[in-house]
C-alpha cells in the first residue's frame, strides 16, 4: 500500500564517474528517482548496467560525482560519522552475497544485539533483549535457541539471508535496499525469502528497493519497475506497464531472454 503523497527519498541528477581521461567510465548517468513511502521499486538491468553503483550511492557508501540525494525532504548530509550513523538508522541493505555480509568474528547474538542497540535498546533488561532476538528469529522461521553461540558461517546461505531479514525486522528502517538478495539462493528458498520480505514490508510500511537482473522477480514483487541500461533509466512505470507492454527495445530483449513456461522461448535472438 504505497502512500502516493510522501516522497521519502529523492535523487536528482545522480552521476558517478569512475576513472579519468580515456579510462573514464560513466557508471551512473544523471539518474532521477522519486521514492514514495511504502512503495516497492525494482531496478532491473544486466550485469554492468550500474545498478549496484546506484544502490551504493543511495546508501551513502560511495559519494556521487554529481547530483544530490534528498531524504525526507531534506538534502542528505553525511559530513560526519554521527550523521552517517543517523542516516543508516533509516536506510538498510541486504546484499547479494550472504557469506560476505557478516563480520566473521561476531556471533549471531552480537549481530542481533547490535541492531537492538542501534534502536536505543542498550539499557533494556536482558530478558527483553533475548525476547526481541527470539521474536526476530521467529519472524524468519529460525530457532533462536539453536543459533545462540553460533557464528554466521555455520549457517547455510538461505539461513544467513533470513538472518539478514531478522536484522531488518529489529532495525525497522524507513528504506530497505535489497541488492540481488536471492540470486545466490536456490529457487525454493527464494520463495521463502521473498514471502518474508513482503510480510515485513506489510507490517512496517517501509519502502523497498529491489535491485535485480531477474525480471520475473521484479514483476512479482514490485509496484514500480525501472529498467536500467548503461547507467540510465530507459523505461519506468508500473510493473504491469513495463513488463507486459514494454516500449523500449532493451526491455523487450531482457524479457525475451528469460526462460518461460507458458510461452515459447526464442533462442534465435542472441
Amino acid at each position, binding site marked *: 500500500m504505497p502512500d502516493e503523497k510522501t516522497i521519502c527519498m529523492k535523487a536528482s541528477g545522480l552521476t558517478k564517474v569512475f576513472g579519468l581521461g580515456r579510462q573514464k567510465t560513466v557508471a551512473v548517468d544523471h539518474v532521477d528517482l522519486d521514492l514514495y513511502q511504502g512503495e516497492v521499486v525494482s531496478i532491473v538491468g*544486466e*550485469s554492468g548496467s550500474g545498478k549496484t553503483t546506484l544502490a551504493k550511492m543511495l546508501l551513502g557508501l560511495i559519494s556521487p560525482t554529481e547530483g544530490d540525494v534528498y531524504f525526507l525532504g531534506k538534502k542528505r548530509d553525511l559530513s560526519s560519522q554521527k550523521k552517517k550513523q543517523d542516516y543508516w538508522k533509516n536506510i538498510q541493505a541486504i546484499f547479494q552475497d550472504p557469506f560476505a555480509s557478516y563480520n566473521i568474528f561476531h556471533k549471531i547474538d552480537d549481530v542481533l544485539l547490535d541492531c537492538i542497540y542501534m534502536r536505543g535498546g542498550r539499557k533494556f533488561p536482558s530478558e527483553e533483549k533475548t525476547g526481541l532476538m527470539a521474536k526476530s528469529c521467529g519472524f524468519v*522461521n529460525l530457532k533462536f535457541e539453536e543459533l545462540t553461540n553460533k557464528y554466521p558461517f555455520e549457517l*547455510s*546461505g*538461505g539461513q544467513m539471508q533470513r538472518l539478514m531479514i531478522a536484522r531488518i525486522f529489529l532495525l525497522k528502517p524507513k528504506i530497505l535496499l535489497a541488492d540481488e538478495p536471492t*540470486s545466490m*539462493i*536456490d*529457487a*525454493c*528458498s*527464494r*520463495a*521463502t525469502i*521473498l*514471502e518474508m520480505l513482503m510480510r515485513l514490508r506489510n507490517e512496517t510500511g517501509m519502502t523497498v528497493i529491489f535491485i535485480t*537482473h*531477474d*525480471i*520475473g*522477480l*521484479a*514483476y*512479482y514483487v514490485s509496484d514500480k519497475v525501472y529498467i536500467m541500461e548503461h547507467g540510465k533509466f530507459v523505461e519506468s512505470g508500473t*510493473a*504491469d506497464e513495463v*513488463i*507486459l507492454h514494454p516500449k523500449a527495445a532493451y526491455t523487450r*530483449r*531482457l*524479457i525475451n*531472454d*528469460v*526462460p*518461460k*513456461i*507458458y*510461452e515459447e*522461448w526464442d*533462442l534465435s*535472438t*542472441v
Partner: protein
Amino acid sequence: MGKVILEVKELTTKYITRFREDIYAVDHVSLRVEEGKSLGIAGESGCGKSTLALSLMGYYFAPLHYTSGEIVIAGRNITGMKPDDVRKMVLGKEIAYIPQAAMNALNPTQKVISFIEDVIHAHDPSVGKKEIHDNARGMFETLGLPAEVLQKYPVELSGGMKQRVVIAVSVLLLPRVLIADEPSSALDVTSQKMVIKMLRQLMEIGFVGSMIFITHELPLLYNVTDEIMVMYAGQIVEKGTAKEVVFDPLHPYAKGLMGSIIVPEQGLRNVKLTAIPGVPPNLKNPPSGCRFAERCKYVMPECKTNSIGLRDLDGERAYRCILPEKELRALYQREVKTNA
C-alpha cells in the same frame, strides 16, 4: 526408443565425515539417458544433485565413496575402476563435466590456448601443437566464439564468455555425455541464454551425444531438457517428461517446487508464491519412512513408518509417494476447490 548411452542402476554413494559418519547423498538412483536426449535434474540445495553428477562419472575421491550400484556408459561398465583409470579412459571422451563454478575453472596464469594444450596432452601426449591450435580454432568458430579468445587470459573475459570457453574446452574430445552442473546460475539472463543456446547447438551439431542438465531453475529446465528428474534428500521423488513434471507434478514436493516458479508472464503476479516450509532432513540419520513427510501437507501416520518405493506409471513416469495416483490427484483437486 533410441540407443541408451548411459545407464545407471541403483547407484548409492556416500560421504564419510571425519567423525566416521556415513552420509548417503545419493540413495539407490537409477536413470537412463538415450542418444540425442537430455535429462534434467532438479532439486533444492543439498539434495544430492551435484553428488549424483560426480558419482555418475565414477570419479571417487575421499570423502565421497562408492557403495553399490552400476554405471554403464556406452556398453562399458565403469563401476569399480580406479580414479586414475577413469580420468584417462572415461573423462573427457565418454563423459564430460562442466562444474558449478565453471567461471573459476580456468587457470588465471595461463592463456586459454595453453590450458587447452594441457587438456589435450593429458589424454594424448603425442598430439602436436599446431594440430591442437587448428582444432581449437575450428571448434571455437563452429560454436560462434571469437578465435581471439584463445590468446587471452581468463581475467580479460567476461563471466558469460568464461563460461562458454569452459564448455567449449570440456567438449574438445567429443564426449558422449555432457554433465552441466548449474552452468548458468551465476549469469544474468542474456548471458544465460547464450550459454543455453550453445549447449543446444552442441547437441545439434553432434559434438555431444546427450546431456544431463542440473539446475534448480525449473523454467530453464523445462525449456532445455526432454525429461526431468526431481531429487529430494538423495532420492528420486519424481521423473517424467519435462511437460509432465512441470505442468502435472504428482509428488507433493515436486508440486511445491512448481509453486516457487517466478516468470514474467501475465497473470502470474496474482498467483501466490508458495514456499515449502521447513528444511530437508539431515542425511546422517534419514527418516525411516518418507523423507519428505516432515514437510508434506498431506502427511499421514503411515508415511513416517513405511519405507516408500518408486511407483512406476506407464511410460517413463514414476514417483515416490505412499498414495496411488488417483488419490493424489483427488487431493490436489480438493485443495484447488477449497482455495477457490
